[in-house]
């Protein structure tokens, strides 16, 4: 992979991890989790495992929707 793009994606993953741990609202934590997953999938594509990338990209939003079923209602 291009070195510059790899450093940018690694910085995005680290930023999302710090943000997901430090926030206190569940919705903000879920948005940071989406940042982590978006930074992770290009690393899977770069190895050439494209079928795994399709499966992971379709399964992780499903997991987020499962967590949203347990969230309390937001602002009215």
């Amino acid at each position: 992979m291009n070195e510059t793009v790899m450093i940018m994606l690694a910085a995005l993953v680290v930023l999302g991890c710090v943000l997901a741990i430090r926030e206190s609202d569940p919705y903000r934590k879920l948005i940071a989790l989406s940042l982590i997953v978006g930074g992770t999938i290009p690393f899977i594509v770069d190895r050439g495992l494209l079928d795994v990338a399709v499966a992971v990209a379709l399964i992780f939003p499903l997991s987020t929707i499962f967590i949203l079923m347990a969230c309390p209602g937001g602002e009215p």
Partner: protein
Amino acid sequence: MTPEFLLGLFLILAGTVGTAFPRPKTYLNRLINLEIPGIGILLVMLSYNEALALLTYGGVSALSVFIFVRVLQKREAKT
């Protein structure tokens, strides 16, 4: 020592500490922080080129999150 391996180790360490000591100590925050080590394990498996392990782990991870959400809803309904 590929970058995927180092990034996965960082995610596992930070996510485990965040799951053990969440900021507001609720079950929902603990469940959301539990997703971070899952993605770290995915990255460590990726650095060894295990395609079948990645597919199986991705499927089972969503299933376990669903079971945890059901347990959490049942506990909230009881109290």
